[in-house]
């Protein structure tokens, strides 16, 4: 069996995770279930059907031609419609009946995430944040703000690699202090040079690196930080009602980015202990990581798309903290009009001020 749905034990409707109550909720009969309880119930159900599932797996082998192109198709458990996703789609919704479907094939073996931070904010919160995001921005084209139609809005569990590491650092800085004085003819500046050495250790927990190529790295880093305190052990139940991708960049390939970030922050942290100087320039730095651990987690992200003048604009909201990001277009006409007006006004004011200084 390729597609997993959680059926309501009361009415057999398809369940979805509700971010406001942090429970599974049946949209049909409004019954709420603890994720843990449902998981146990679902395991029992699955045990019944195991033999039957084996059959479907055999049928799946016919789609190997699709695999070559990266496309996958699945059969919806509710209406029998065909769901087409790509090789990384792990949770989606049926285009025919709208039921939430989790594609279990994607979670076989090593692909299962260790943790998940469940969605804390819903679609309405994302829409509200989007409108707030457009406020107070003078150079934003008025048309963009007035139309503000959202083409697409979806909650996605994005795969992240989490890196834990201890870092030992040896860093040497060249620092300067200045002392200024003057006599009647000259101003003097004495610059004193110092060699500043710092060594020590610092530790990092759960530094996330985006494991999906479909999510732009800068967009994903912009909605950070995620607070790992809310993370729970992964269960597929959390995915229902949302989309999910499995990773397509493995941990090995993500290490470089984690290293860069950890090294930069280590250097910054030790740089901050160098106080009382005018300039501080790193001369030499050695950062050694040890006891590094990698974890695989799903983090909640709301993704919004909109189109303006044939260009696509993508916005992202942290599904845990509500941090909303996304670049906006500039009204070029407004830009230059404002530049001209301010130049003229400020120029006239300054020139007037110059005359005033002469006259008074």
């Amino acid at each position, binding site marked *: 069996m390729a597609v997993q749905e959680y059926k309501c034990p009361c009415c057999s409707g398809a369940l979805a995770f509700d971010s406001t109550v942090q429970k599974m909720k049946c949209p049909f009969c409004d019954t709420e279930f603890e994720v843990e309880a449902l998981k146990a119930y679902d395991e029992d159900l699955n045990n019944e059907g195991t033999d039957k599932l084996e059959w479907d797996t055999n049928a799946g082998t016919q789609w190997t031609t699709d695999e070559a192109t990266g496309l996958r198709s699945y059969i919806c458990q509710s209406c029998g419609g065909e769901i087409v996703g790509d090789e990384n789609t792990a949770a989606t919704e049926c285009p025919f009946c709208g039921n939430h479907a989790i594609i279990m094939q994607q979670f076989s073996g090593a692909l299962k995430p260790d943790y998940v931070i469940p969605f804390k904010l819903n679609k309405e919160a994302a829409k509200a944040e989007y409108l707030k995001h457009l406020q*107070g921005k003078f150079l934003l084209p008025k048309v963009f703000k007035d139309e503000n139609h959202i083409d697409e809005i979806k909650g996605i569990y994005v795969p992240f690699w989490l890196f834990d590491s201890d870092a030992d650092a040896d860093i040497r800085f060249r620092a300067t202090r200045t002392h200024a004085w003057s006599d009647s003819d000259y101003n*003097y500046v004495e610059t004193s040079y110092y060699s500043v050495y710092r060594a020590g250790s610092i*530790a*990092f927990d759960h530094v996330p690196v985006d494991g999906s190529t479909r999510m732009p790295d800068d967009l994903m*880093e*912009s909605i950070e930080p995620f607070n790992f305190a809310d993370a729970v052990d992964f269960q597929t139940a959390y995915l229902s009602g949302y989309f999910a991708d499995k990773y397509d960049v493995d941990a090995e390939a993500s290490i470089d980015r984690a290293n860069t970030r950890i090294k930069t922050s280590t250097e910054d942290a030790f740089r901050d202990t160098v106080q009382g100087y005018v300039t501080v320039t790193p001369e030499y730095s050695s950062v050694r990581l040890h006891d590094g651990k990698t974890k695989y987690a799903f983090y909640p992200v709301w993704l919004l798309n909109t189109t303006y003048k044939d260009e696509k604009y993508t916005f992202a909201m942290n599904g845990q903290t509500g941090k909303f990001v996304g670049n906006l277009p500039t009204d070029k006409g407004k830009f230059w009009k404002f530049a001209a007006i301010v130049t003229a006004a400020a120029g006239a004011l300054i020139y007037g001020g110059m005359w005033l200084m002469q006259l008074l």
Partner: protein
Amino acid sequence: MTKRITAALFAVILILSIAILPAYAESTYNYKLDDAANVLNPNEESQLLSTIKEVSDTCKCNLAFVTVNDINGASFSHNGTTQDYADRYYENEYGKNTDGIVVLLVLNNGKGKRDIYISTSGKCIKRLTDSENEDIRDEAIKKHNPDSKGYYDFLNAIALGIKKAVPPHLKWYMLPLAFLIGFGIAMLILMFMKKQLKSVEMQRGAVSYVRSGSMNVTAARDSYLYSTVSRTARPKNTGSSSHTSSGGGTHGGGGSSF
């Protein structure tokens, strides 16, 4: 927006006109040429006098050109310096702290040299800065032919220098400079507003993920290496200095011997 800027421009024009109008309203300024040392012939005298009148009109201030053989035997009291003689001459002639300038040429300063002193009073203290005053004197001394007895060219150069320096004036590049600064301000504001539109960027580091209390500095050494000293010439004083005369009036100005 446009309305507000029009209002701002209007305010500037208003302030400017308030500042300028009184200066034009007053029109009674005196001028004088007192050639006690007799260094000018009658022809030169009348020519210089008409120049002085013109300069006085242009600068809107009192203006006296005075030549004396020495500063002894004045009709007023002074403390014996060329500076005080000039200051007191002005006060005696036009009153304390009125707007005006006196140019004093002393043929014998008691040390075998000649003194030239330009004393300013009232608004003219600020209008004629120390450096402008010095430039005028230097220029006049350069124009003077040491062998000739005549001082017409010398005094005429001073009159023309005052005519150029005293009326409110700005150097030609001030206008483009003002608008360049204005453009800089506009760009600064726009860069700030453009930054508001950009919220997507890579994180610099991983500062949010530092395990709290995990930082441990095991070695810290700050060693002094060496020092360098650089010096730059101080910019010349661009303003005007002032002093109080023995008569109690405030004056600016300066003099040189040649």
